[in-house]
C-alpha cells in the first residue's frame, strides 16, 4: 500500500513540471521610460493579451526610448519593441548598408555611426527588422515660452532649448528638425533632463523653447498652453519641405485647432508614427514568432476597441503613415493586410452592387409611379442643351481633382495639408499657367493639368448652353409639372385665355404649358414668354411621344384648340385628343406598346377594338386622365368625341357664340351680366366656388343663404347654390353617366337649391364675390353669423 502511494506521489511529482511547461511563452518587450507614452501603450497591450486568451506574455523592459529599443532589437536583446518610425527606418537602412559596405571593403562604413541613434551597419548586420504595425501617431510640437515667437528656425541657437531625453525618438527627431533649420545640436543652448524638468525650467523662465514629439493633446503641453505660459509655434514651410525631402519617414500634418486650450487655428508640423518592430531570429521566421505576432495584433485590436484605453489613441495601420515606408511587414501582418484589402474590395463591390440594385429598384418604382420621363424624351440633344449638365460636370471634376491631389500630396506637401488647401492650390495651378510651385509630385501635376483642361472645356460648354437658352424666346430652367394647365395647339386669338388665367381674381395661379406650332408669329411667342409661370413648347400635338414630357396625367386641365384658319399643317382636335390619351397611357404604363395584345413591338395591323386608344379605358385600372376641354369644330358634330367622353368636354365655340348673341340681342342686360360674371376685373363681382366650412354641414341651405347675404368684407356675397364634390378619378362617373358628359357635371351643380336641402361635407359654395380671397375671408368669419341665423336673428356682419 505504501508502495502504491509512493508511486502515485512520484507520478504527481513528474506531472508538475509538465504543468509548468504549459505556461504561455514570455517575450522581451522594449517600452520607454516608466511614465512615458511607450510604457502606457505596452501596459495596455499586456492587458489586451491577457484579455484575448493569455496565449503569450510580455516582459516589459523600461528603456530610454526608441534608440535604446532599436539597439537592443538589433542585438537580439529584445523580441519586440516600440520605436519611432524615423529611427526604425534609419536602422533598417543601416542593415541594408552592411552588405554594400562589405562588398566595397570600406571598414569605416561598417563602424561609422551616421544613422540615427548612431546605429552602425555592423551593429545592424544580419538583423531582419520587420514591422508588425504602426500603432500611434506623434506630432512634433515646437513649444515656445510666451511672448517669444519663432519666425525663423535659425534663431533656435539664440534661446535655451530642450529637445528631449538622450536616446529617445523625440530627441532624434529634434536633431533632424534642428538640422533642417541649418543648425547642429551642439550649437544649441540645450537643457538636459526629462520632460518634467523641462516644463519646470520653462515655468522658472530658464527655458524658452521645447521640441517634443508626442501625440496632439498631451496633458503637460495642454497645461503649459492653457495657463498662458507657452504657445505652440508652427514649423515653417521651408523646414517642413527640407525635412520631408531629407527624411521621408515623416509626413506633413497639422495640430488641429482646439487640440489645446485657446488654440483656435491649425498648426502645420510633421508627424511620425510609433511602430511595433520585431527582428527575425537568425534571419528566419518561426512559428512561435508568428503566433506571438498574431496574438499581439489581437491585443492591439482589443485595446483599440476598449473604452478604458481610449486615451492611448491607438490606431493600427499597415501603410500610409509616412511618405516612404521601407520596412517590410511581418508575414502575419502582410497576410492580415491582404485579407483586409480583399475584404475592403469585397465590401466596395458589395456596396456598388447594392447601390446599383437600389438604383434599379428606385428606377422601377419611379417608372411605376410615372415619375421618370419618357425614354424617348431623354435624348442626347436634350442633355447637351442643358447647362446644368456641364456645370455639374465641372463641379464634379474640381471636387474629384481636389480630393485626388490631396490624397497624393497631403503627407508630403506642406501647402496641401487640407482639402481646402488642395482646392486653392489647384486653383493656383490652373490660373498660374501650371506653375510647379503648387504641386510637388508629377502625378498630382498631371491630375491638375487634366482637370484644368477638362474644366475649361466644360465651362465653355456651360457658357454655350446658357447662351443658347438666352437666345431662345424664353428662359426656363425649371418647370413645374404638377397641377398644371396644358394648352395644345395654341393660336394667337387665345392670348385672351392666358390673360384671364393670369388675372387677379382666383387665389391659385397654376403653371401653364403651351404647345405652339412653328407658324405662331414670333411677336405672339414673345408675348407668351413674358407671362409668369408659362412654358412654351414647339412640338407636334398629335404625336404622343412629344406630349409625354408634359406629364399630362398630372395636369389639372388640358385644353385642345383648333388650328387657326391659315395654319399649315392643321391639327385636328380629335387627333390631338387621341394623342393625349396615348400620352397618358404611355406615362402610366411606360411602354410604347401599351397593351399586351400588341406585343413588344407595339404594332398591330388590326388593333383590337377594346384597345384603350379606341375605346377609352376602364376607370378601375386605367391611367389617370385629366379633365380635357376640346374646342369642337362647327362642321362636325360634338359626338365625334364620344369615345373620350368620360374625360373630355367638347366646347362648341361657334354654337355657344350664336347662343350668346341670340340672348344678348333680345336682352342687352345679359351681355353686361355675363361679362361681369366671367371677367376677373377689380371693379365687379365674379363667380367662385369655395368649400363650405364645417359649421354649415348638416344645416339647410336656407341658413347658408341668409348668413351669407348678410355678410360683407370688401363687398357682399351673393350665394347662388352648391357644387357637390365627387371622388371620381375622371371628370365624370361613368356608372352614373347616362346622357352627355355635361349632364353629369350639371347634376353636381345645384343652383337655387331647395331651401331645406341639407349641406354635406365636401359641398362647395357657388357665389358672386369680389374675388376668391374675399369669399374665403367671409366664410372664415361666418360662424357667429350662422349661429345668429339659426337662432332667428338676422343682421349684417362686416369682416
Amino acid at each position: 500500500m505504501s508502495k502504491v502511494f509512493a508511486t502515485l506521489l512520484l507520478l504527481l511529482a513528474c506531472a508538475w513540471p509538465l504543468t509548468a511547461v504549459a505556461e504561455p511563452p514570455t517575450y522581451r518587450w522594449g517600452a520607454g521610460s516608466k511614465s512615458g507614452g511607450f510604457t502606457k501603450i505596452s501596459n495596455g497591450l499586456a492587458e489586451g493579451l491577457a484579455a484575448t486568451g493569455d496565449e503569450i506574455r510580455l516582459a516589459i523592459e523600461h528603456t530610454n526610448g526608441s534608440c535604446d529599443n532599436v539597439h537592443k532589437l538589433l542585438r537580439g536583446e529584445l523580441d519586440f519593441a516600440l520605436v519611432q518610425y524615423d529611427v526604425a527606418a534609419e536602422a533598417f537602412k543601416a542593415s541594408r548598408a552592411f552588405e554594400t559596405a562589405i562588398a566595397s571593403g570600406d571598414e569605416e562604413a561598417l563602424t561609422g555611426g551616421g544613422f540615427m541613434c548612431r546605429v552602425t551597419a555592423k551593429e545592424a548586420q544580419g538583423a531582419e527588422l520587420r514591422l508588425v504595425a504602426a500603432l500611434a501617431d506623434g506630432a512634433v510640437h515646437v513649444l515656445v515660452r510666451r511672448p517669444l515667437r519663432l519666425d525663423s528656425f535659425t534663431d533656435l541657437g539664440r534661446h535655451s532649448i530642450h529637445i528631449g531625453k538622450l536616446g529617445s525618438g523625440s530627441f532624434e527627431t529634434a536633431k533632424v528638425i534642428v538640422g533642417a533649420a541649418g543648425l547642429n545640436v551642439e550649437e544649441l543652448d540645450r537643457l538636459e533632463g526629462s520632460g518634467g524638468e523641462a516644463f519646470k525650467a520653462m515655468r522658472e523662465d530658464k527655458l524658452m523653447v521645447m521640441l517634443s514629439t508626442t501625440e496632439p493633446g498631451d496633458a503637460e503641453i495642454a497645461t503649459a498652453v492653457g495657463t498662458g505660459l507657452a504657445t505652440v509655434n508652427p514649423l515653417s514651410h521651408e523646414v517642413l519641405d527640407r525635412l520631408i525631402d531629407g527624411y521621408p519617414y515623416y509626413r506633413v500634418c497639422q495640430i488641429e485647432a482646439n487640440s489645446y486650450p485657446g488654440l483656435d487655428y491649425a498648426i502645420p508640423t510633421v508627424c511620425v508614427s510609433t511602430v511595433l518592430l520585431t527582428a527575425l531570429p537568425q534571419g528566419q521566421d518561426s512559428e512561435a514568432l508568428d503566433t506571438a505576432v498574431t496574438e499581439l495584433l489581437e491585443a492591439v485590436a482589443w485595446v483599440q476597441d476598449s473604452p478604458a484605453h481610449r486615451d492611448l489613441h491607438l490606431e493600427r495601420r499597415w501603410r500610409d503613415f509616412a511618405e516612404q515606408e521601407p520596412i517590410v511587414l511581418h508575414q502575419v501582418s502582410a497576410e492580415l493586410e491582404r485579407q483586409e484589402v480583399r475584404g475592403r474590395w469585397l465590401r466596395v463591390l458589395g456596396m456598388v452592387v447594392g447601390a446599383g440594385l437600389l438604383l434599379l429598384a428606385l428606377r422601377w418604382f419611379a417608372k411605376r409611379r410615372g415619375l421618370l420621363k419618357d425614354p424617348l424624351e431623354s435624348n442626347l440633344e436634350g442633355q447637351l442643351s442643358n447647362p446644368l449638365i456641364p456645370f455639374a460636370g465641372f463641379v464634379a471634376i474640381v471636387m474629384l481633382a481636389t480630393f485626388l491631389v490631396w490624397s497624393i500630396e497631403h503627407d508630403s506637401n506642406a501647402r496641401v495639408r487640407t482639402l481646402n488647401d488642395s482646392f486653392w492650390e489647384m486653383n493656383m495651378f490652373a490660373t498660374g499657367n501650371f506653375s510647379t510651385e503648387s504641386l510637388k509630385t508629377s502625378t498630382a501635376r498631371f491630375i491638375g493639368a487634366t482637370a484644368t483642361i477638362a474644366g475649361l472645356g466644360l465651362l465653355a460648354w456651360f457658357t454655350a448652353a446658357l447662351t443658347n437658352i438666352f437666345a431662345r424666346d424664353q428662359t426656363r430652367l425649371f418647370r413645374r409639372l404638377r397641377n398644371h394647365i396644358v394648352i395644345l395647339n395654341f393660336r394667337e386669338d387665345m392670348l385672351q385665355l392666358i390673360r384671364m388665367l393670369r388675372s387677379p381674381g382666383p387665389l391659385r395661379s397654376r403653371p401653364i404649358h403651351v404647345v405652339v406650332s412653328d407658324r405662331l408669329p414670333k411677336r405672339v411667342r414673345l408675348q407668351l414668354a413674358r407671362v409668369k409661370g408659362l412654358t412654351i413648347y414647339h412640338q407636334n400635338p398629335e404625336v404622343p411621344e412629344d406630349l409625354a414630357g408634359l406629364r399630362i396625367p398630372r395636369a389639372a386641365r388640358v385644353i385642345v384648340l383648333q388650328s387657326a384658319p391659315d395654319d399649315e399643317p392643321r391639327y385636328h382636335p380629335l387627333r390631338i385628343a387621341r394623342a393625349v390619351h396615348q400620352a397618358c397611357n404611355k406615362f402610366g404604363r411606360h411602354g410604347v406598346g401599351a397593351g399586351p395584345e400588341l406585343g413588344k413591338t407595339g404594332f398591330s395591323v388590326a388593333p383590337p377594338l377594346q384597345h384603350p386608344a379606341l375605346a377609352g379605358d376602364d376607370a378601375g385600372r386605367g391611367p389617370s386622365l385629366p379633365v380635357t376641354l376640346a374646342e369642337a369644330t362647327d362642321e362636325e358634330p360634338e359626338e365625334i368625341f364620344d369615345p373620350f367622353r368620360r374625360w373630355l368636354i367638347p366646347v362648341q365655340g361657334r354654337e355657344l357664340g350664336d347662343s350668346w348673341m341670340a340672348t344678348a340681342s333680345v336682352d342687352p342686360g345679359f351681355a353686361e351680366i355675363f361679362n361681369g360674371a366671367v371677367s376677373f376685373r377689380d371693379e365687379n363681382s365674379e363667380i367662385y366656388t369655395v368649400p363650405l366650412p364645417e359649421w354649415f354641414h348638416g344645416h339647410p341651405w336656407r341658413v347658408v343663404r341668409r348668413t351669407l347675404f348678410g355678410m360683407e368684407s370688401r363687398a357682399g356675397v351673393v350665394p347662388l347654390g352648391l357644387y357637390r364634390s365627387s371622388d371620381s378619378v375622371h371628370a365624370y362617373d361613368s356608372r352614373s353617366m347616362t346622357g352627355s358628359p355635361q349632364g353629369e357635371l350639371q347634376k353636381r351643380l345645384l343652383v337655387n337649391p331647395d331651401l331645406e336641402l341639407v349641406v354635406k361635407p365636401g359641398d362647395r359654395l357657388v357665389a358672386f364675390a369680389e374675388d376668391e380671397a374675399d369669399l374665403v375671408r367671409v366664410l372664415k368669419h361666418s360662424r357667429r353669423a350662422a349661429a345668429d341665423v339659426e337662432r332667428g336673428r338676422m343682421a349684417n356682419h362686416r369682416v
Partner: protein
Amino acid sequence: MQEAPVETAKYAQGELTELRYAPMVIINWSPAALGLVRALAKVAPTSPNEGPPVVCVGTDSQADVDAALQGSSARSLLRYVEAPSLAEGIEPLARVLAREVEIAAARSVIVLPDDKAEEPDAASRLTCTAVTRACAPNPVPNILVEVEDPEAAYEFAGLHVATVFYPGYLRAALLAHACVDLGVFQFVYGLLRGRYRVRLRPVPPELRSGTFFEVACSLELDDDGRPVTPIGLQLPAPERPGPDGETTLLINPGPRYPVREAVGLLVLVES
C-alpha cells in the same frame, strides 16, 4: 307678379304693358351662319301667323341662298333679303334696310362681320351707320355687332350699338373658367345655354325702404314656390345718358345697399 328679361327696363318701370312682336334682323348674313338663326328662333319664338322670326340680310344672291337652304329645317325661320354691297355706298344699303327690311320696327339687329370686306370691322361700322340712317327719324333698335378685332370695339361709340361681341373672348372666358373651377364653368355654360336666366322683377313696395339684404331674405321663392336668388339691382339711367342710352346693372351691391332708387331687382331663376 310678372317677370321680364332684363332688356325691358321700360317694361319694368311700367312704361310698356306688353312686349311687342318684331322680327330680329341679321346683317351680312350667309347660309354659314344658320346656327345663329336657330339660336334666335329659340330665344324669341313666334307663332306661324306672325311670319319668320328672323330677317337675314346679305349680299349673296337669293338663288344661291335658296339653293343652300334647300331641305333645311331652318328655312321657315328666316326671310332673306338681298342687299347691295357697301362698295356701292351706305345709302343703297340704308334704302334696302328701310324699305324691304323695315328695320326701324325690328326687335334687335345683329351685324356680323363681312367676310368679303378687307377690313370687316370697318365695314360693320358703316353698316351701323346705314342702320341709323334707315331708322331715322324713329328710334334705333338694339344693335349687337360681332367684331373680329376686340380693339375695334371703341370705334362703334355713338352708333347706337348696345353690345359688341368678340367670340374669342367668349371662348377664352369659358376655357379659363373650366381651368380655374369646373363648377363655375358649369354655371357659365348653363347661363349660355339658357338653363339659368336673370329676370328683372319690380322691387316689392313694402321693401322699398329696406336694404338689399332685407330684400334677399324676404324674396326666397317665386310665385310658383321655386327658389330664386336676387343677385343685384337695375339702377335708373343717368340723367345725362350716353349716346347709346345704356342702363346700369349692379351685381352684388352688398347687404347694406338701399333699394329705394332701384328700377328693378335682378333675380336668378332656373328655366
